[in-house]
């Protein structure tokens, strides 16, 4: 076969395949065009999962009649003039391929009316035919109608999945864009039935409520930060509090300059920030919008623009991680002061809601002061004050639990407590092991390496076999970082000379740390894993009977934790049963 130039039509069909794979790709391109046109309302209508028809209408600035034919030509765009413009790009599209690609593989009709024009124009395009233009009566904006997708590419058409699957993919695209643009009202209809509708009032929380329910929306924390410095990264969004996790990563979403994206380093930053705050194999809910100068982002990595690269990948990673830790009340500082709009609580939520700070923290401090007790360490006050400002909604945010008064121990495991005062008074259940484990974990974490080492009056012998000896040699730096000191006392024993201060049962624990499988990963990660293990062993166990004084002491040390709400493995440490909760259960309202 000799080499020859492909006919234009064939080449276009092949090229279109890169951009348009399935109905969802069409939806994505059209929605992005609508957004780039400054739309405040975007309506997506589908038939047969988008296989039969896709219609996207917007109220954007429209296309001038004389430019309409150009719109469907390949590499024709209003978004870019010179190559250098790519670096300043703020629009979602820029390649000028979208409509041309759609036109190559489907029946396309575009109706558009700029606001200043008196009427609209309709452009009909059939692959290989000259476009036809005709006037049409319509509201300002643009409506794009795509029918019979892949009618001329049977192979593609055959590979389309069921209407249901394709619909799901389209829905996903609309949802992702709705999240990325809370200020735009989205509406998705399938065969006339509304599947999704967002208010477009600029509140991401309302978008979340519309997409996944108000309960989830109400439980998320708001995050808003501007990183100073050359990066000029603005970060905003909603994140799940510690302890609230999902079995999948589906709700870990990032947008960069209004574009839903995938980026491994963002995902890693998120997972790291939630480490020890979520149980294993649980993932946070995370809707984060990043805004940064276009120069800092390369979106032209993949035809679908779904994957982005950052110029300063590490800096972005670090900023996101730190911001998340702050938002989660982590070690990096006080929680950010962010007022959040509150979503109505779903009535009839019977399940005991896990709490993340149910009480106006200012009140708690006042209550403690009134009681004349200094059990709460002074350090709680600034954080609590900061939280107090935003705690007006009662929904509360970050911060620490109120001072809890233990009432009883249930199943030898849960401490029943009263917390808060007045309206905010509520019943609490504290998992004694999880709470104490959290305390120990933070205590180990806070002490610098080599600090908090408590030498023993008499060394403790630890029997050594060859396996243990090898483990000792390999793990010595890690064990020493935790606070253990030992030396070999002959061929078959090790003398334990110092232990981490405050540890219970150090001898047996030390032996176990030699015997157990060593954690993997980077140094910090391994250290963290072992701190968690030491904390678990040192903490009061489930089933340990505790006298009232011991209960009070446990609660006091727990409430001084920075991250009191979960144990290091991410299980919840406390559950609050609020006044409202009880009122509902007793049908008082």
């Amino acid at each position: 076969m000799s080499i020859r130039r492909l006919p234009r039509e064939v080449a276009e069909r092949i090229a279109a395949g890169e951009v348009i794979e399935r109905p969802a790709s069409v939806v994505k391109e059209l929605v992005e065009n609508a957004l780039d046109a400054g739309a405040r309302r975007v309506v997506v209508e589908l038939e047969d999962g988008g296989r039969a028809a896709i219609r996207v209408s917007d109220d954007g600035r429209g296309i001038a009649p004389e430019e309409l034919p150009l719109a469907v030509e390949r590499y024709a765009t209003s978004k870019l003039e010179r190559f250098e413009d790519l670096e300043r790009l703020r629009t979602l599209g820029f390649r000028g391929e979208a409509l041309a690609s759609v036109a190559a593989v489907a029946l396309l009709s575009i109706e558009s009316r700029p606001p200043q024009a008196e009427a609209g124009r309709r452009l009909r395009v059939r692959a290989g035919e000259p476009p036809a233009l005709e006037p049409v009566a319509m509201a300002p904006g643009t409506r794009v109608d795509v029918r019979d997708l892949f009618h001329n590419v049977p192979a593609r058409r055959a590979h389309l999945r069921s209407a249901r699957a394709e619909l799901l993919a389209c829905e996903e695209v609309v949802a992702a864009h709705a999240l990325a643009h809370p200020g735009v009202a989205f509406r998705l209809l399938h065969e006339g039935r509304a599947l999704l509708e967002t208010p477009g009032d600029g509140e991401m929380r309302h978008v979340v409520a519309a997409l996944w329910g108000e309960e989830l929306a109400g439980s998320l924390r708001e995050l808003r930060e501007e990183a100073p410095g050359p990066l000029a990264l603005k970060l905003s969004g909603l994140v799940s509090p510690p302890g609230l996790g999902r079995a999948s990563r589906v709700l870990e979403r990032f947008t960069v300059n209004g574009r839903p994206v995938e980026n491994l380093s963002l995902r890693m930053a998120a997972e790291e920030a939630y480490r020890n705050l979520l149980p294993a194999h649980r993932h946070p809910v995370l809707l984060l919008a990043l805004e940064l100068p276009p120069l800092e982002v390369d979106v032209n990595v993949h035809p679908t623009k779904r994957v982005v690269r950052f110029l300063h990948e590490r800096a972005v990673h670090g900023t996101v991680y730190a911001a998340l830790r702050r938002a989660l009340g982590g070690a990096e500082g006080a929680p950010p002061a962010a007022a959040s709009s509150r979503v109505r609580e779903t009535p009839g939520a019977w399940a005991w809601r896990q709490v993340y700070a149910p009480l106006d923290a200012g009140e708690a401090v006042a209550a403690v002061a009134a009681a004349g007790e200094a059990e709460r360490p002074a350090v709680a006050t600034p954080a609590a004050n900061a939280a107090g400002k935003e705690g007006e909604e009662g929904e509360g945010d970050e911060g620490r639990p109120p001072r809890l008064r233990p009432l009883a121990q249930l199943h030898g495991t849960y401490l029943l407590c009263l917390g808060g005062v007045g309206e905010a008074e509520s019943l609490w259940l504290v998992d004694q092991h999880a709470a104490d484990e959290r305390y120990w974990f933070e205590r180990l974490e806070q002490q610098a390496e080599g600090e908090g080492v408590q030498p023993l009056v008499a060394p403790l012998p630890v029997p050594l076999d060859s396996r243990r000896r090898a483990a000792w040699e390999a793990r010595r730096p890690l064990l020493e970082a935790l606070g253990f000191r030992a030396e070999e006392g002959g061929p078959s024993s090790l003398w334990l000379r110092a232990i981490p201060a405050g540890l219970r049962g150090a001898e047996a624990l030390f032996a176990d740390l030699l015997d157990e499988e060593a954690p993997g990963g980077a140094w910090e990660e391994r250290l963290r894993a072992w701190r968690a293990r030491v904390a678990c062993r040192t903490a009061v166990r489930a089933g340990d009977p505790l006298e009232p004084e011991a209960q009070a002491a446990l609660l006091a040390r727990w409430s001084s934790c920075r991250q009191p709400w979960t144990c290091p493995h991410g299980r919840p440490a406390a559950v609050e049963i609020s006044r409202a909760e009880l009122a509902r259960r007793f049908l008082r309202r």
Partner: protein
Amino acid sequence: MRFRLAQPALARLLQVTSRIVPARSPLPITSGVLLRAEAGWLEVTATDLEMSATLGLPATVEEGGEAVLPARFLSDLVRRAPATDLELSTQEEALAVRLAWPDADFVIQGMSPDEFPRPAAFPEEGPAATLRGRDLARVVRRTFFAASQDQARPILTGILLEIAPGRITALATDGFRIARQEVVQESSAEEGEQEEGAAAIGGLVVPARSLDVLAGLGEAEDEIRLASDGNRLHARGNAFHFQASLLQGRYPQVLELLPSRFVASWQLGREELLAACERVSLLGAGREQAPLRLQFGDGRLVVAADAPELGRAREELPPLEEGEPMEIAFNPRFWMEGLKVLEGERVQVEMSGPLSAARLRDPEDGSFFYIVMPMRTAG
């Protein structure tokens, strides 16, 4: 069973015994006290299965017999009863006991005396020693706090008692500090007979909690006779019999490994030092990881602490006697408990290095010392 006894006497008996009654127990009967009346004598017994105490008092017994009544309730009721003669008598109904005084009548449902675990008899054979109640109380009180509360090494939750004729020594350690008190009994050896029954009872490890109870019971007694049957420590006084299970196992030879010489020895006013340490350590209250740092040198002692996020504290004290310079840090609780248990005006602080054991003692009293391990602070 039917007897009469004055309210204050019975109230005291019940108050003392109910200290032993466990808050919760796998054996419900132990939530009760056993009352036993016999020939002009009433005995009350309580046990938590690890120890038991029987206290006796003369009473007007009309009919001998036994009953087991709920300890807390009985103690609370008798304590609130008027100061008059109380009468207790078993009733027709099974296990019920009537408690009455003029104008009042309570019937209390009891438990079966057959189920009550009986203390073993005092071993009349074998080695025994006699000592004064207050000497026993003293050795216990001055070492009790240093015993471990960590069940991981049960042996350390006990106090090691060495009893030799004319001398009793107690030692407790939790692995981080050691308290040791010795009491030499004022010689009663003039009466040759007493020496006969006096034998050395060495190496008994008695749970600290049990000894604390015993110290309370026997403090006022002139003579307490101690004996061991290998599994239990028995103590008998005029009006009580106490026994406690011994902790089995080898008590570590902690004193052998300590420095034989201390290179730095300073003397300070004990109360001033304690007060300064208490103020400085307030900063890290509730957080044991904030060590108390002591800098001995330049004619002064600087006590300092800093807690991240909380602040810094520093106080200076003039020594009474100066020694070699030393920088050392301690767990504030361990350090201050030693200062508190000392009684004299002065404290001798002896150290041999920032990571070696330090010793606290009263320069005027050789019967007690306290060893405390420093804490490593950095590096």
